[in-house]
């Protein structure tokens, strides 16, 4: 800096005023630069989260200020068959939908990784289900699954004459559960496919060339090159995917509202149903808080289960 090259007498004369000195003071600068970010995080993240957790320990309702009741909400949920039902379906929904999304998404990514005409355009089109607002696609699926006006029923009954009655997609528990999972998979595939495609393109072609010279089959190239190289990104994408799926709300709420008879409630929809519709804010918050352990477990599993170095480097090489 030019100031330091001045003779010492000059420095004494040009002693900067207090504002300049304050801004040269490192700790102050650090605080000043961080304050906006910390402020935003506090107001929009920490406070709502903290309030949510606090509410879970009170009996607040929409019309009434609550009092601290300790674990009462959680004790009630423990005995509540509907909460257990929601836990079961949340886990089931997440497991099946994530598996489906990854199987189909990975497959799609491998296909898109090939060279073919209009490659970029097709890659863009694949993203569509993910770009469309969830509520819109949920409404579309709501019509597709409608007991009276379903396009699938129409095709099977009136056009192809394969069935004589409409399919009752949402009227009984298991078909309703799988219908929702199918909708979620449809929506989630692009995210997985595009993320994995990005990962695939980082794998050096020379690895495949070397393997081909050694006479490796397509399956062997996939199993011993692609899969291990993809493990780190798979772990990240899966973590995100599990979190998104487990906390899904819009699809289920727009299509079934948790019905028939609460068989498709996810923890998120049950929390909304109890907290906002039923007015029991405290209990709704408790249901939302009860999702945290599952999410932490899922995250840890993806991280430590899939991101192990051993996997990435092959079994034999420790």
């Amino acid at each position: 800096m030019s100031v330091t090259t001045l003779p010492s007498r000059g420095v004494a004369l040009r002693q900067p005023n207090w504002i300049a000195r304050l801004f040269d003071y490192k700790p102050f600068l650090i605080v000043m630069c961080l304050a906006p970010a910390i402020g935003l995080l506090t107001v929009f993240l920490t406070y709502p989260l903290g309030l949510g957790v606090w509410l879970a320990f009170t009996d607040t309702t929409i019309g009434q200020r609550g009092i601290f009741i300790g674990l009462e909400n959680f004790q009630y949920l423990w005995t509540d068959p509907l909460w257990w039902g929601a836990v079961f379906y949340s886990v089931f929904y997440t497991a099946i939908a994530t598996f489906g999304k990854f199987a189909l998404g990975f497959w799609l990514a491998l296909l898109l990784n090939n060279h073919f005409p209009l490659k970029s355009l097709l890659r863009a089109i694949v993203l569509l289900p993910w770009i469309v607002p969830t509520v819109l696609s949920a409404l579309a699926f709501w019509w597709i699954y409608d007991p009276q006006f379903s396009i699938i029923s129409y095709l099977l009954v009136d056009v192809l004459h394969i069935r004589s009655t409409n399919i009752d997609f949402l009227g009984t528990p298991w078909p309703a559960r799988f219908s929702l999972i199918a909708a979620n998979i449809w929506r989630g595939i692009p995210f997985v496919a595009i993320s994995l495609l990005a990962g695939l393109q980082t794998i050096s072609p020379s690895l495949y060339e070397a393997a081909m010279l050694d006479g490796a089959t397509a399956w062997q190239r996939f199993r011993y090159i692609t899969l291990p190289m993809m493990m780190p990104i798979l772990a990240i994408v899966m973590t995100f995917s599990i979190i998104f799926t487990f906390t899904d709300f819009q699809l289920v709420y727009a299509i079934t509202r948790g019905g028939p008879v609460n068989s498709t409630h996810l923890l998120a929809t049950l929390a909304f149903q109890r907290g906002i519709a039923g007015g029991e804010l405290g209990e709704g918050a408790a249901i939302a808080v009860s999702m945290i352990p599952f999410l932490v477990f899922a995250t840890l599993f993806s991280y430590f289960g899939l991101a192990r170095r051993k996997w990435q480097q092959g079994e034999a090489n420790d």
Partner: protein
Amino acid sequence: MRNDITRRDALALGASAAALAVTGASAQTTSPIKAADVPPPKFAIEKGASLRMLRPVRFVQADEDVFRANAAKFTKETGIEVKVDFVGWEDISQQTAVTSNSGAGPDIIIGFSDAPHIYVDKLVELNDVTDYLGKRYGGWLPLAQTYGKRSKSDKWIGLPFGATAGPLIYRKSVLKSIGYDKVPEDHAGILDLCQKLHKAGKPAGFALGNAKGDGNGFANWALWSHNASLLDEEGNIIINSKETIEALKWVKAIYPTFIAGTSSWNDVSNNRAYSSQEISLTANGVSLYFSLKNDPATKAIAEDSEHQLLPKGLAKVSPMAGLTLNAMLFKHSPYPNAAKAFLQFMMEKEQYEPWLNANSGYWSQPLAAYADAAVWSSDPKVSIFKNTMQSTYYDGYKGPISTATGAVSADYVLIQMCAAVATGAQTPEAAAAEAEQRAKRYFRRQGR
């Protein structure tokens, strides 16, 4: 809460009320509404008063137009500015909660049915207005009294503006083709009718999914027509009763005759199925009939349709509750007298009768004298809605109305009890026990 009325302040409104009485008398020749000659209460309008109110959005455009015109007329006659905001149905209860908790915002909110009972501590009593209106217009109908008065007292905490209900709507020609003129009043008869409709390929359909309006309407009808109810008069939960079990057994018997998929129906599903002629019997508000009638493509369906009050079963009168518009005046309002004067003004026949007529039957009157309004003779198929507020049944029957009664219907507790039995997921006994447990959870704080 009594309002201090000084003689000087009373002059302003007294004069305008007198003017009103004069114009009212001259209008008497054309209006069929009989109004008794009762002196109106004199409210001391606060200096510089202005009012803000919220109400749910309209069914028909004319509703909003006439309502706004009436409010403008009030401003012209009294000089009190009134700002009316129309709010979506889904949002009105949340906005009421915020207004009530924060003690700021609109002076008057027209909410739904049970709202005044939830915010009772924050509301101004309206007895001076309601006493006068009741005496002048032939008395308040039973449903208006239930929703307007604080339970087990004569204190009016809400001012009902009107109600709408969901009676049966059916296809005359289809019923005739299987040998019925109308839907029977007894359970065995209804079951037989539905079985025959099912056989004829034009089944009945009632919402058993998470449908706030239609689903609760069906579940309540099934229970009440078997003399079962959520609460007794004291507010004890009596849903797990032998009457409920009987009702659930009947629901289980009748469910297979419905069109497939009713367990996933929401509030619009039955409208669509009826409009597309997939079903020939359901229960719905008058909106379904009007949407059929106003569309040239479905006009023929409307002509072939008929409304009927929900069958009585074992009940003495048709067990049908109406969704009620219920006005609340908040204590935080700086101008309670102006607000009362406004509410009273809006219920006077010069304003209320045109408004009632403009709604073409969507809302029906809370005061007996308005039964003579022209709207009820305009279309014979709509005239049964005239008696909506004659009903002695209400959401939370037959206990005191509270936050919890509203929560039980918002959380679909009774619908899900019926649907669980209908679909075979639970036995009647297990479903009733579960509903009892869920209801108890919502009612656990009622005593506090």
